[in-house]
């Protein structure tokens, strides 16, 4: 079973990041083109400073006057979730699952020993690991 595996054994290492100063449309294009639900956001030093999810966009639309959201004039910094919860790349998958379930997240940025962004782990990744690890009688993935 996969729960003792480390986050880094499963995470996606080629992480899509966008600077916080970029307009929202950049992140939406990334989400659409790459078929991802989350975009990691970086500050001027290239360090992780936020995460943008579908739900952030829905929430921003609601809070904007008359429910209009200018995706060209709104920056990621205005919409993203700041200082996202992260996990060590060395942590076991069991810890990642617990963090996601407790906080209602579907993605966790993973950091290396130096605190640098090393990858991203999603709930899909975890589910895939479980299915691959066990003799689950199910249609072929």
């Amino acid at each position, binding site marked *: *079973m996969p*729960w003792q595996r480390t986050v880094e054994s499963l995470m996606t290492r080629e992480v899509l990041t966008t600077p916080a100063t970029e307009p929202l*449309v950049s992140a*939406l294009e990334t*989400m*659409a083109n790459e*078929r991802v*639900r989350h975009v990691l956001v970086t500050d001027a030093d290239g360090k992780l400073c936020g995460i943008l*999810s*579908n*739900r952030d*966009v*829905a*929430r921003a*639309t*609601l809070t904007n006057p*008359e*429910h*209009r*959201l*200018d*995706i*060209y004039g709104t920056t990621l910094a205005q919409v993203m979730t700041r200082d996202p919860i992260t996990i060590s790349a060395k942590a076991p998958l*069991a810890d990642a*699952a*617990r963090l*996601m*379930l407790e906080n*209602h997240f*579907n993605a966790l940025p993973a950091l290396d020993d130096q605190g640098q962004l090393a990858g991203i782990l999603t*709930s*899909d990744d*975890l*589910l*895939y690991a*479980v*299915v691959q*690890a*066990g*003799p*689950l*009688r*199910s*249609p*072929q*993935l």
Partner: protein
Amino acid sequence: MLSVSDLTVADVMTANPVSLRPDATLADASAALLNKRLTCAPVIGADDSPLTVVSTSDLLRAYSAAGQDCARVAQQGIATAVQQVPVAVEPTLALTEACERMVRARTHQLLVVDGGRLVGVLSTTDVVRAVACIDDLRKSGRFKAGEVTRTNDAT
């Protein structure tokens, strides 16, 4: 000036969504969600009435609790894993009201029900698509209410 306020749930929902039957196992649900890149799927009865929703989080919670015994748990029925009470809306509901219910319920998906039958799902991805699409169409001057393109891909 066009805004999301002009839209209803029916304008942007995913019609004919991937769904599961009540006798599906956790393994069936896992395969369906992963294959279709979905975060959750409605469970419907023989008359297409919505019963509940099973999500990736539901499955992970069950597998995580099972520890080394995932293979056995995977053969259990999905009813053993489902925790969330589904939030249902009508297709004529304003999209903004649907978004508010979504945020309030901390869910990524609403069931769209008409006359007791499941007719679609509304996900946060559908909302994002609508927000992006509206702006592009407004700038090009081509938008008419109800013309927002909906694709049936995974959410």
